[in-house]
Structure formats: C-alpha cells, structure tokens
C-alpha cells in the first residue's frame, strides 16, 4: 500500500473513532447530568428513594444489551431512519453508564458527615446553597470515579451496538450502505468491515488507534477531571487515583455491609451504612426496607401479569423453546465463569501475595481490558480457523473475555482493604502449602470474588447476545438465548423477543436472590 492509501486508511479510522467518541461523550454527558440529578433526588427525598433505588437495583443486574434489538425496534418505529438509529445507540450506551453514577452520587450524599448537614441547618442555608456548597463538592469525586467506570463499560456497549447494528452483509456493498437498522460510521462498524473484507492492516491499525484513544481519554479527560474533583477532598483522606477502572463494590463490602437480613443485591454493597439522613431526620427502619423490596416484587408481578394477559398463547407457543435455549446459555455462562475463576484466583493470589510488581501488571491489564471483547472477535475467529467446535469455542472465549476482568479488578481492588500483616501471620505461625491456601489466600479474596462475580456474570449475559450471534451465517452456535434474541429480532417476531427478555430478567432476579444474596449475608457476618 502506498503512502496516500495508508494516510487515507488512517484518516478513515480517525473519522470513525471521532464518531464513536462523540456518541460516548454525549452519552456520558447525559449520564452525568441525569446521574447527579437523580442521585441527589434519591438521597434527599424519602419517597423518591423508595422508588428509584429498587428500580435501579433491577436495572443494574439485567443484561441490558439484550434489550438492544428491542430498543432499536422501538426507536425506529418512533423516529425512522438515521436519527432513530443514532438515538438508539446513544440511548443504549447511556443505559450502561447511568446506574453506577446515580449510585455514586447517592452514596456520596449519604456518607456526608452528619456535622456538615447540621452546620447547614445551623446557618440556615438555602437549598441552592446546600447544593452548591455541600452536595456538589461531596459527590464530584464519586461522579468522576464512576464516570471512568462508566466509560469502560460504555465502550463495550458502543462497539457492540455498532457492530450489531451493521447487519451481516452491509460491508460487502461498496460505500458501506448498511441496512436501515445500522449506524454507518463508527469504530465498531469500521473494524467489522475491515475484518469482513480481509483488510488486516486496517483492522490492526484500527485496534491500535482505538487503544491510543482510550489512553488519551484517560489522561486528557479523566486525569484533569480527577484533579479538579479531588481538590475538595482533604489531603489526609487519600483517594485512590489509580486503578479506578473498576471502582468496585468490593471496596464497600468491607466497610459498609449492612447487617444480615437487610441486604439488597450487589448495589446494596455500594451503599454506606445509613447515617443520619440529609434532609430532616429519617431513619431507615426495617419496615422501610421491606417496602422497597415489596416494590420490586410488585414490579416483577406486574411484568408477569402483562405477559399473562398479552400472551398465554405465546407462552404456550414459545416457553419450551425458550427454556431449551436457556439451558445452553446457562451452561456456557457458568462454565465460562468457572474457568474465569480458575484463572483469576491463582493469578490474583500471585499478584496480591507473591509479587511486588502488581501495580504494573494491573496497569497492563487495564489497557488490555479497555479493549472490548467484541472488537477482538474477528481476530479470534481468524485464529480459530475451521475447528469443528469453532463457534462454540468462539462463544466461550467471548464469555470469558467479557467477564474475567470484572473478577480480577474486583479482587485486586478488594485486596487493598486486607489487614496489613496477613503474610507475617502466615509466616510466624508456619502456615504452608494447602493450609496456607485454605486459610489465607483463597479466603482473603472471597469478598472480591463475590462482588466481581455478580458483575462478571452480568457481563457474560450481556456478551451472550454477541457471542452466540457471531458467525451465525457460517457456523454460529445453534442454541442459546442470545441466539434466540437475534433470530427473533431478525424475523420480526416481537412476542418471542419480548418473552425471551422477560425470561432472562426473571432468571437474573432469581439467581441474585438465591445465590448472591445468600453469600452476601454470610459475608456480612464477617465484615461489618
């Protein structure tokens, strides 16, 4: 390729990146504004809190990506053409970025020292001045921290939704005139097309520039924001400015876990133990918590009722088929999770206990992890060649890549709260071999595994829609819930699509309350 060709290629990659980044920035802006507003509202109004928090509880653990076909469907129905699809993509990214920002703000406001509020009462500060002098400064560091997490999650959604919206054969046509359901420019689109047309150089350059953009964003956007936000926090309270890729719930697990019986799923861990509330004095009685649980059940029941009314017919028609597909996806997800555990447990034990260079490894991991699994797909496919289990292996790899980082970062971040002298205790009392693993290493990272586990599984479900979709034309997996969603979307089978989503949501809620909630309850006896 000559120089002009190369320059052209790079220019086109840059244009695509700029489009993608614009979507990201818009989504982040919307998420931050909404997050601050809703977060403050939830933290200062008892009634709002009761409605908002349970809803977010559900949304956070749902694989929102699986709603993508549904969302596109609706957006296009409402706003036809290019604008509709753009809005759908931005909407989707926003749904991935928003929840943790709301919680960050909510949590920040709830952990404001009581004295500040008393001081504000004492000086009779107006609502606006309270916002300006107390609430904004207190939540700003959290907003920035959460924004970085949101950015990483958002990248995955961005690329995936771009790829997804391209459609299967859009690239072959010159000028990239994709179908009506697709965005036409974006790094996800570009990479898919390079891969589809065998443009290895374009694909490699695309990934390199993608990584450069990720790193540049970190340093040019988030670093200054961090500095700005943290100028309020006192020097003595040293905030972590590194390793914020996954500022994760585990950090809270040790400090803020609620006493048994009052936990809610994962997000609960994000919340500090109740302090005196910000407005007036309101205490969270058990009854109140019961209330928000009840709301959750009401929502679920409502959803179930809608299905009942709308489609006993469809239920009879499709439920068996859905469950059959489900079995396969559940197997894939959990086997992938088991494999991820088998990799990350020894890896993290090594990083935490056996090496002094763990922060350099983490930095490396952060860069690798910022590459959404979905843009690596073409490379993985190429590497796989034509092995007989081709599509099954690819799906499996995507599951693992999508989930494992959450585990690793969550464990590493929780490890910062470990008691300092663990290794010395182990050495003084001569714990070796199996006993050391059983009593020290593995036990030490359980909280990180639990908090990372929920997110890892959620991420895997999110990935299922891509993993099981990819290569369907050639040899995609034949059964799976992601596959079912794809095919029902492609064939415009809205009832099936909807019913499958409800099933997915129900499954997530059930697993949450059966598995994770119990584990947290146990943990809360230990870390309080």
């Amino acid at each position: 390729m000559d120089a002009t060709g190369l320059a052209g290629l790079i220019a086109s990659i840059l244009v695509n990146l700029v489009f993608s980044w614009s979507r990201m920035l818009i989504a982040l802006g919307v998420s931050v504004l909404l997050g601050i507003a809703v977060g403050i509202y939830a933290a200062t109004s008892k009634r709002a809190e009761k409605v908002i928090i349970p809803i977010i509880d559900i949304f956070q653990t749902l694989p929102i990506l699986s709603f993508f076909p549904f969302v596109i469907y609706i957006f296009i129905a409402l706003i036809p053409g290019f604008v509709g699809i753009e809005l759908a993509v931005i909407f989707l990214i926003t749904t991935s970025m928003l929840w943790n920002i709301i919680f960050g703000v909510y949590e920040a406001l709830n952990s404001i020292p009581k004295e500040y509020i008393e001081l504000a009462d004492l000086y009779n500060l107006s609502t606006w001045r309270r916002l300006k002098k107390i609430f904004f400064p207190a939540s700003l560091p959290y907003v920035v921290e959460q924004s970085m997490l949101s950015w990483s999650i958002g990248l995955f959604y961005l690329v995936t939704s771009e790829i997804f919206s391209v459609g299967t054969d859009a690239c072959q046509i010159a000028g990239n005139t994709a179908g009506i359901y697709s965005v036409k420019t974006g790094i996800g689109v570009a990479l898919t097309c390079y891969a589809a047309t065998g443009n290895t150089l374009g694909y490699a350059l695309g990934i390199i520039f993608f990584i450069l953009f990720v790193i540049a964003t970190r340093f040019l956007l988030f670093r200054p924001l961090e500095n700005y936000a943290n100028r309020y926090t006192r020097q003595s309270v040293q905030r972590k400015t590194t390793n914020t890729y996954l500022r994760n719930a585990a950090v809270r697990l040790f400090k803020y876990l609620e006493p048994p019986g009052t936990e809610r799923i994962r997000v609960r861990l994000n919340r500090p133990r109740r302090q005196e509330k910000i407005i007036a004095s309101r205490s969270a009685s058990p009854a109140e918590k019961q209330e928000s649980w009840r709301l959750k059940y009401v929502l679920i029941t409502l959803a179930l009722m809608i299905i009942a009314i709308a489609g006993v017919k469809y239920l009879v028609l499709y439920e068996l088929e859905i469950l059959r597909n489900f079995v396969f996806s559940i197997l894939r997800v959990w086997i992938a999770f088991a494999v991820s555990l088998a990799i990350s447990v020894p890896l993290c034990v090594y990083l935490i206990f056996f090496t002094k260079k763990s922060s350099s490894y983490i930095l490396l991991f952060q860069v690798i992890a910022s590459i959404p699994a979905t843009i690596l797909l073409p490379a993985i496919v190429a590497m796989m060649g034509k092995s007989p289990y081709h599509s099954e292996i690819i799906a499996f790899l995507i599951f693992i890549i999508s989930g494992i980082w959450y585990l690793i970062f969550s464990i590493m971040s929780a490890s910062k709260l470990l008691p300092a002298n663990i290794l010395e205790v182990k050495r003084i009392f001569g714990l070796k071999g199996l006993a050391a693993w059983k009593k020290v290493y593995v036990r030490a990272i359980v909280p990180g595994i639990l908090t990372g586990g929920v997110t890892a599984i959620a991420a895997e479900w999110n990935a299922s829609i891509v993993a099981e979709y990819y290569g369907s034309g050639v040899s995609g997996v034949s059964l799976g819930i992601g596959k079912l969603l794809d095919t029902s979307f492609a064939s415009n089978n809205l009832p099936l699509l909807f019913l499958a989503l409800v099933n997915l949501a129900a499954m997530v809620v059930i697993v949450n309350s059966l598995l994770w909630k119990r584990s947290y309850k146990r943990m809360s006896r230990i870390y309080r």
Partner: protein
Amino acid sequence: MRMVEVDDISFMYSSAAKVIDGVSFTVDKGEFVSILGPSGCGKSTLLRIIAGLIKPSKGRVLYMGNDVKGPTKGLSFVFQDFALLPWLTNLQNVELGFSLMDITEEEKRKRSLLLLDKFGLIGFEDAYPNVLSGGMKQRVGIARAIASDPDVLLMDEPFSSLDELTAGTLRNDILFMLKNEDLPVHSVIMVTHNVEEAIELSDKVVILSEKPAYVKAVKDLRMKQPRNKHGREFLKNMDSVYAVLAKD
C-alpha cells in the same frame, strides 16, 4: 540463660535511608526487655528482624545460640493491630497458633478452647473478630501467640491501641505468665513508645535514638513487681529515661 542475642544489627529499606544502625543487646531467660524509642525510629523493623520476618542488612540475631534465619519456632509475635484474620472465627484464629504442631485437629480445637477460656473469651469462639472489642481482639492475638508454645514473646506496641484500663489488665496477664514457670513464654521483648509502660514492666529498657536507630542507653531496672507508679524510685527512673531520650 541467654535466650536472644541481637548482634550489631543494621538495616535499610532502600539504599537511600538507613533505618537501624548497629543495634546490639541481649535477653536472658525470665527477662522482660522493652525497646523504647520515638515513633518512626525503626522499632517495629527491629522487632521483625528479631522475629526472622525481615533479613537484616548487617549483623545477626541469635536465639538459643543459633542464627535466626526466618520465622522460628520458639519466637512468637503479637501485633500492634492484632492481625487477626477476619474470615476465621476467633477459635480458628487461635488454632493458627498450633499449625506447626503435630497434633490432631480435635486436639488443636480442645487446646484452643482452653486458651480462650483462660483469657475470658468463652462464648465468642464461633464469632468472628469483628464483634470483639479492641481488648478482646488483642487477647485473641496473645492467645494465638502463646498457642505455639514460644519461649520468647515478641510484642509490637501490643497495648497502644487499647484503653488504659484494658491495657493494665493485659499487662498483668503477661507479667503473670512470665513469672509462672509452667506456662510458656520465658522472656518477653516488647516494643513501645510509652515510657511509663516500659518502666512498669521491664527488667531492662533498650533506649533507641531517632532514625537511624542506634542504642542510646540500656537501662537495668531492679525494682520488685508490682511496681508503684507513684513511688520515688519509679519516678526517678522515669526522669532518667526521659533525660536519655531528650539528649542528642
């Protein structure tokens, strides 16, 4: 009998800053030795070197005439922040102390319960450390240290994070153990920055300088136990220790 000999120990964490500079002293059987010095002078580092947790840059530590090359049976450690493993119950934490012993799990359990009983912690064996008060945590820490049947107990500011009342009781427990031949622990080396505590408990106080720590003075205290903190001799010793500490 000579239990521990610290022989010309020097240490630096990095080539830039020396932390310990040629410290020597000895500990005999039955002796309570305090290492006294200002915060950050290197006391914890020195105690960890004695325990075999850190290798000295220069010099050596002898326990019963043998080089200490790593954690050694016979030397046990009580940590300033207790260092209980939060995910083990209090009983399991004490059982850690028996790890090196060749006895059945059942036996470990029985002996650990006995120790918990001795320290007034029965009823908390199946609870996790998080429900204990600071004083109770440190008693678990001491029980765990004693479980390994040590000759010498190394304690790093064991009472500094406890309230004065609790600390007083625990100090007496330690002294009682030291006096009683049937119990383990025949010598104690305790790091502290509390002058009064050092004089109340010790037969010998090793006074360290600011970082890098060298031995400014070794003070022998020949007062009978229990010591009256308001007695004339006690106060005189306090004054002279303060004088050494203040001197450049």
